[in-house]
């Protein structure tokens, strides 16, 4: 696993600050340049304060944007320059309690937008940054303000925002239209049957709200990625959901069908929810066929290639972020490994896919 938090040391009297690890002798406002190096230990100088980082090499983190937290003596790698998978955690609060949630909500919220704004300005050229939660739109005003501010300074950046789609209003239309080219909205939909969707997200009325708000995103011409985690609770309804999407969500740029992540509520509810698609791909295959016939894009996230019948493998993406991805021992001889999504770090073989077949 790639560490996202590094052990760090600096004066506890400093306020938290954001810096970029400079390639050379950086002297910008937020550039940190290497002043001393010995095995397992790096010292950096920066205008906001000097600090030490342990456990990585200078090459590992060159170009990275770090949030130095003097209180906790931690450096958060907000942006890893070499990775396409960078996400800002906007909040851990959420108004839904999805059965399979990998990041269960917390009540406390710490506003980090000022740091995120600095970090975004230090991001590599044309980067796409994920904005996730919790539910980012619970802090909609601050979030929209942050995006406005980034857009004004770094028009090359784009954002992939994961939201439950519960918090849009008609008055957001002009804003959504203004930023449509730089925002991709990832919105979950678990079923076209309102009661089934509401039960999975454990919020009565969620589907009705989602339906109206997806309509708004359509009117805004927003880029929309629908996301459906396949579970025992909705697996038999995937074909009907596919039909619903092709008829009622034709403006969705893609539909991502996702396998569960065994962490958070996902771990707690694993045996109740995990649908072993390696044993039965029939409904998934029919749903994909329907989307193909309707010429709408469909993608499989978090499906190891060998669990997907050959005819549908072209839809499987290498979706698992680098820092939490792994392969199994069985995968070592597999010829498809370099194209395979692999497994989440916290995947367990004993209660996972029964049909893993290295090719």
């Amino acid at each position, binding site marked *: 696993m790639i560490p996202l938090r590094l052990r760090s040391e600096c004066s506890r009297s400093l306020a938290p600050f954001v810096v970029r690890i400079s390639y050379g002798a950086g002297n910008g406002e937020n550039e940190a340049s290497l002043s001393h190096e010995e095995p397992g230990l790096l010292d950096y100088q920066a205008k906001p304060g000097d600090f030490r980082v342990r456990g990585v090499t200078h090459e590992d983190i060159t170009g990275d944007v770090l949030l130095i937290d003097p209180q906790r003596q931690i450096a958060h790698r907000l942006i890893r320059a070499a990775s396409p998978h960078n996400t800002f955690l906007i909040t851990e609060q959420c108004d839904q309690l999805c059965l399979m949630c990998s990041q269960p909500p917390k009540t406390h919220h710490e506003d980090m937008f000022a740091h995120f704004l600095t970090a975004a300005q230090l991001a590599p050229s044309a980067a796409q940054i994920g904005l996730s939660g919790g539910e980012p739109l619970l802090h909609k005003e601050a979030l929209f303000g942050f995006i406005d501010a980034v857009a004004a300074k770094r028009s090359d950046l784009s954002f992939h925002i994961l939201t439950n789609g519960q918090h849009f209003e*008609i008055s957001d239309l002009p804003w959504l239209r203004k930023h449509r080219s730089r925002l991709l909205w990832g919105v979950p939909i678990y079923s076209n049957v309102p009661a089934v969707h509401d039960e999975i997200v454990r919020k009565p009325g969620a589907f009705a709200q989602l*339906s*109206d708000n*997806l*309509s708004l995103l*359509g*009117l805004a011409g927003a880029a929309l990625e629908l996301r459906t985690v396949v579970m025992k609770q909705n697996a038999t309804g995937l*074909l*009907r959901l*596919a*039909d619903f999407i092709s*008829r*009622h*969500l*034709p*403006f969705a740029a893609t539909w991502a069908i996702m396998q569960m992540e065994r962490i958070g509520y996902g771990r707690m509810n694993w045996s109740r929810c995990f649908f072993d698609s390696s044993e039965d791909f029939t409904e998934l*295959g*029919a749903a994909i*066929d*329907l989307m*193909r*016939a*309707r*010429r*709408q894009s469909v993608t499989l996230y978090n499906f190891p290639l060998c669990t997907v*019948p050959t*005819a*549908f493998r072209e839809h499987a993406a290498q979706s698992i972020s680098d820092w939490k991805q792994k392969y199994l021992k069985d995968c070592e001889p597999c010829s498809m490994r370099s194209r395979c999504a692999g497994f989440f770090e916290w995947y367990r073989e004993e209660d996972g896919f029964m049909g893993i077949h290295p090719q």
Partner: protein
Amino acid sequence: MADRAFVDRYARDELNRFDTDFLVEMGQAFRHVGELPHTAFLTRWAQRQHVGGGSAYVILIPTLRCDLKCSYCQVSRAPVAAKGFDWDDETLAQVLTFLDALPVDEIQIEFQGGEPLLRLDHLKTVTEFARRRFQRVRFVVCTNLQTLDADILAFLANEDVLISTSLDGPHQLHTRNRTGTAELTQAFHRNLAQALDLIGPSRVSALPTIDMECPPKPEDLIAAYEDFGFTSLYLRPVNYQGFARKSHPSARTSQSWTAYYRNFVYTLISHNARTGRTMEEFYLAHCLRRILAPGADSHTDLRNPNIPTGTNAVIDFDGQIYPSDEARMLARIRQVDLSVGDVANGLDHEKLALIAPSHINNFDPDCIHCPYQPFCGTDPIDDLSRNGRIDIPRHESWFCQRHLAVFDLAVELLYSEDPAVDFSLCHWLGLETLPDALRPAIS
């Protein structure tokens, strides 16, 4: 699909609650402006009207001369020794200037004739220019493949060059329609096999032109195509243009064609089910794709709207620009001059504007009542050719009759649930199974 009782309730404005629920669920009705079914309908409607931009499709006629004299030739080709039927150097330069000015980075150029390979020199000049000018290029050489030499083979070996040729079916029929002698047909067969061997079946396509006075037996036609390893064929009726209108008066009406076409498709489906092979009839498969989804606009003759512009033009041997290949044929027989400019003086925008409205079916008083309107198109040039006018009732036009029959057949197959039919449909559509959701019904 709905039964008669539903249609009656609909016509009398007596839909019941189940009817309305069904229509909303299917995305055919909505309850409030702004709700999801409404926004979805707006989107699907807009997707149907949007014919992809950014790419040009230009047909070039470097020569009208041809070394064959097919009975149904639609362009009234010139004899191979004739003078004055090729681009001269000035016209060639002007064609390149015209291409250079197109507002696109992607182009498909189709070389037609006459026999375009008689002017391989022009083809080389155009392809070399286009590869420099455009980011993405593709060339289709529409050739009779009667003559192949080392230079031609070297040209065809380029990855971005495709071949489209005519294979009318059994040897005797091909000879009757096209070559006139068995020797020439044999030469064509040898050359086709050589071309397939050289550049592979993915870059070679063939189509049979069907003369209804002497059509091939469907089984023989399928066999002729399978012999060469083709997996797709496109049945083309004799075009009522050029020479064809004199020698093939039966091409003017559609009845015999429709019966033949239906029988061919059902024969093909049984053949596929029996042999496990998956030959497709391109046009039917294409119409099926258009029914099921927007965006199936790869076939330039069936699009809606299909407004003529410089990016979908035909440039004739004399530098005249036409909106379509059929329009050039009408000019050639002096029925009506539908040229929309020439390469020396550029496009005639007044004329383009004049013919534009007839190239969209959305407002046609007949088409608006047709269930196939969103999938269909228009062909005012064909209407002019057959009827001398473009405003005859649609169902009296060949285009409408032909397409009603194709779409009727496509829907019949989609709803048939016969395993043999589903087998072919799945292969034509690239599916593993045919979901029932693709054939909703209310009664």
